[in-house]
């Protein structure tokens, strides 16, 4: 029977209360100690072959009959007013089918998509759809826009002085920080400056829209097909039944692709006007100017502690450069929630700048906040004469320090111990030298949410050939969640994961589910998949019971066979399903809520070893030990690859990635991949990756999330390792050779 229930979920640091529809569920829990069968075995991605051979179809690969190509005119100025534009001249170019300017396009999420006063360099102003890319380019040249440049602010301090906020400042207080600081035996103050990191997903933002009299279909590179659908309904006044959003394969998003994006609205509007399908794929440069970034932030900490290193009070502020969009990402969460500390006063100031809108980026706020605060903690450890890991152990908390709630599970102390052992932490001072190359080792803690929750739905059907089709209301942004779902279903049906066909990424399929974010997808959908699989299993066993005249309770599905528990019957599952002919056995499942009143978090610890070339200033990360508590590991191969990716992206933040803005023009000077340095696979250090978490006893299937956790501690651990190597601390990331050499002088 279906019920509507009210649940609470923490998504990227924001608590949301939602109503959800859930089905009653009689699926037995997995035992904690022995992950059954395929669960916990390394499983190659089901889509690996398609991805490698190029047969996987991404949104940017779509080629519909009569499809038009779109381009977007973007402002070259940091802030300007459009004084004239020749839309008609562009329309007159042969091959041009639609041209729209400011005022011609519906809004996206209540905001203008085409601007007559573009507030940043790269803001969209007009859009063109034409038969060919060349015709579109020619029409672009004909637009002849005239600008009146306006004053602009791209400097954080300037914006602070002007008090121009993009989002409301966030203040958090517990206890009495001021008094406690005055009384503390040890106090340290320190500042850190985090850079703007650009997402640079391999696939840029893109959309293919096909507007027809009977409805709109949008192929979108999106982390949220259902969110995209409701945004399109909002923009165009359509109802859900007439909008279909599809995302079969996706080349990453990292938080920058929630919903359909302005590109979805532009493509749809152009398609509506032209009566033809329209494809809009952003160039790398436009991507890096307009689709988001991790916010740059200036952190200031005053920390008070006892001589024993126990935290007593923290006063902290974070000034964030949000540009023209985004929200106050939880940059001070690591101060608030990771350690026991009674007195706190935290202030987050999200400033507006004449730059593109910020967007969530893999552990938004928390990664950069961890980078800064974990280094401040090392400064405290030094002041207290304590081993940095010992300082962290001493400040461990058994309950969420801001709410007092118990955790569903927490294995942070175990993470410290294992990481220290694997890294050779106790001998870390032996790495140090005065030579040309200096080595050091540093650690950082990891804290994040995860855990998932409703709504999530799945359907399974199995036909005569015993190869089930699993439909899940979600999209796979590239994390491998599709494969993990196949593993979960395979366990229930006693088959191999590669025998499962998984259908996702289409709002016209049954069910719906979460967007891919907050490290919540697998933990949300896996229980629904398992429950759907269980329904099918139950029915198959009943059919087998009829056929073989053995009670269903004495039968099981294992290794592709129906077996009786006494071992007398072993027949391929196919022997049962072939009787179905063209009929299906079907089952559906949904995700039940998490327990009330408990904190659901993932934890971990990383230790990095670095080598610093003191003559060139180049830093090499030689080794990273990553230990994370993520509950049950469904596919160790997928989990490890998330960890490697997170570490590499963290290395980019720490060492080489930085959006550079020319202060005199307010425009970004390195929006291309030639000068914006993302680490390559060859830069990946040796990684020792372990998971300490046993299945979380309070969560469905014991699964927590892993998408975001691995990036969180990497930059902080690198920062601490560099400080250990050099005996001095770099306060601004990335640690480019120039900054390293300046610090050494």
């Amino acid at each position, binding site marked *: 029977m279906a019920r509507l229930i009210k649940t609470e979920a923490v998504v990227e640091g924001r608590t949301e209360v939602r109503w959800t529809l859930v089905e009653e569920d009689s699926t037995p829990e997995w035992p904690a100690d022995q992950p059954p069968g395929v669960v916990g075995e390394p499983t190659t991605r089901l889509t690996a072959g398609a991805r490698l051979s190029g047969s996987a179809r991404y949104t940017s690969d779509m080629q519909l009959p009569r499809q038009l190509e779109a381009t977007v005119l973007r402002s070259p100025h940091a802030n300007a007013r459009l004084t004239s534009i020749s839309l008609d001249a562009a329309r007159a170019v042969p091959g041009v089918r639609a041209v729209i300017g400011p005022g011609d396009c519906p809004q996206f999420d209540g905001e203008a998509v085409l601007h007559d006063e573009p507030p940043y360099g790269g803001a969209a102003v007009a859009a063109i759809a034409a038969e060919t890319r060349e015709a579109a380019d020619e029409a672009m040249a004909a637009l002849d826009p005239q600008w009146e440049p306006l004053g602009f602010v791209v400097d954080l301090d300037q914006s602070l002085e002007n008090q121009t906020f993009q989002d409301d400042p966030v203040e958090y207080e517990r206890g009495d920080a001021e008094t406690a600081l005055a009384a503390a035996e040890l106090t340290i103050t320190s500042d850190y400056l985090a850079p703007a990191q650009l997402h640079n997903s391999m696939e840029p933002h893109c959309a293919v829209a096909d507007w027809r009299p009977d409805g709109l279909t949008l192929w979108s590179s999106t982390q949220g097909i259902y969110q995209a659908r409701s945004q399109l309904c909002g923009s165009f006044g359509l109802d859900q039944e007439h909008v279909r959003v599809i995302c079969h394969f996706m080349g990453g998003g990292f938080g920058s692709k929630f919903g359909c994006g302005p590109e979805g609205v532009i493509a749809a509007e152009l398609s509506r006007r032209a009566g033809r399908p329209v494809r809009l794929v952003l160039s790398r440069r436009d991507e890096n100017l307009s689709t988001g970034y991790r916010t740059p932030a200036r952190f200031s900490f005053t920390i008070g502690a006892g001589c024993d290193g126990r935290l007593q009070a923290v006063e902290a502020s974070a000034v964030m450069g949000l540009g023209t969009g985004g929200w106050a990402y939880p940059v001070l969460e690591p101060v608030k929630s990771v350690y026991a500390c009674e007195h706190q006063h935290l202030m987050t100031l999200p400033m507006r700048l004449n730059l593109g809108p910020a967007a969530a980026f893999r552990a938004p706020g928390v990664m950069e906040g961890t980078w800064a605060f974990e280094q401040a903690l090392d400064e405290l450890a030094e002041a207290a004469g304590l081993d940095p890991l010992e300082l962290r152990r001493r400040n461990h908390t058994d309950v969420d320090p801001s709410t007092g709630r118990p955790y569903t599970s927490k294995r942070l102390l175990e993470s410290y111990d294992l990481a220290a052992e694997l890294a050779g932490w106790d001998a870390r001072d032996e790495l140090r030298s005065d030579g040309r190359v200096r080595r050091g080792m540093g650690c950082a803690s990891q804290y994040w949410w995860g855990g998932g929750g409703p709504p999530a739905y799945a359907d399974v059907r199995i036909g005569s050939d015993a190869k089930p089709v699993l439909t899940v209301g979600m999209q796979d942004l590239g994390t491998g969640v599709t494969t993990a779902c196949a593993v979960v279903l395979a366990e229930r049906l006693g088959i191999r994961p590669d025998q499962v066909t998984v259908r996702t990424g289409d709002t016209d399929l049954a069910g719906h589910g979460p967007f891919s974010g907050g490290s919540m997808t697998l933990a949300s959908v896996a229980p629904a998949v398992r429950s759907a699989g269980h329904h099918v299993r139950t029915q198959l066993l009943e059919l087998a019971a009829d056929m073989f005249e053995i009670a269903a309770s004495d039968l099981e599905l294992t290794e592709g066979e129906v077996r009786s528990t006494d071992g007398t019957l072993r027949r391929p599952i196919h022997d049962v399903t072939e009787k179905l002919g063209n009929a299906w056995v079907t089952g559906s499942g949904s995700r039940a809520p998490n327990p009330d009143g408990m904190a659901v978090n993932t934890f971990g610890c990383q230790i990095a070893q670095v080598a610093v070339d003191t003559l060139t200033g*180049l830093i090499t990360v030689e080794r990273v030990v990553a230990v994370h508590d993520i509950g049950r590991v469904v596919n160790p191969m997928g989990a490890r690859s998330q960890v490697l990716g997170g570490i590499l992206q963290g290395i980019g933040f720490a060492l080489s990635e930085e959006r550079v803005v020319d202060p005199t023009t307010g425009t970004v000077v390195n929006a*291309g991949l030639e000068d914006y340095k993302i680490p390559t696979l060859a830069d*990946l250090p040796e990684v020792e990756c372990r998971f300490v978490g046993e299945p979380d006893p309070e969560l469905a299937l014991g699964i927590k999330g892993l998408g975001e956790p691995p990036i969180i501690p990497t930059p902080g651990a690198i920062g601490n390792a560099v400080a250990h190597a050099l005996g001095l601390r770099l306060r601004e990331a990335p640690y480019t050779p120039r900054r390293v050499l300046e610090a050494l002088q």
Partner: protein
Amino acid sequence: MSAQSYTAATSVDEALEAMATGARPIAGGTDLVVGARGGKAPLPDALVAIHRVSELRGIREQEGGLVLGALATHADIVASSSACELFTALADASAIVGSHATRTAGTIGGNVMNASPAMETGGPLICFDAVATLRSASGTRRVALTDLFTGPGRTVAEPGELLTELAIPTPKDGTGSCYARLEYRRQMEIAIVGATAVVTLDGGTVRDARIAITALAPTIHRVAEAEQALNGSDASDAAVHAAADAAAGASRPISDVRGSAQYRRAMAAVLTRRAISTAITRARGGRFPIPASPALHGAVNGGAA
């Protein structure tokens, strides 16, 4: 970005014919096409593809040296044992061009004729006395690599001239060489600073030293003062330092988002020193991995890829 006309030549003569009417040659396209897509320069109106011209392929040994066909790819060069043994600096250079994909598509002819002041193989080719053969519909001429580059993206070649091959004489016995670049990452990088050293030892004495600097001036060029500091010396640390300082002194770097002029000048000395020391090690018969660059910067990288 489309060109107005495109033909694919199957012989040098066909290519020259097309070039005589204004077509630009395209080999691997990794500079030309990628540059056009990135908005650096539009594609020329007429293109003649030369990748099917088999006469231009391959690496062959000939009396007194090696001949690189214009279509020899960076991957070909790294796979050639003669290149690795005799012209180690060149192998150091080709081995770090772009990524695997770039090295199998990108050619030595394209690298040279694109004439970027930051390109990898120029320094080694200049120091090894390479000579380019330029052919046009009206004849053939040979140009020493030292005289080829005239500025960023510019060479002495006339529009109708095709580079057909590069001949490099075998260095004297006792020669070791190295090309090193400063890189912010291990693949897909552009030299922030590069240095080439080709050192010939006779006993303990430097008989001949060739030093060139890359990404430090409008063209890649040799630095006579640096070579003088090393020639006739005992290859001591002091001599190496003096030579490297002279190389830095001769540099005229620019400031851009990749590095300030000041940083580049400072690094000119460091990189030249490392290149010379490694060349000396190799001249003495010591082993040093190819490519030299990642290993030179103090870091050993394990792990995937």
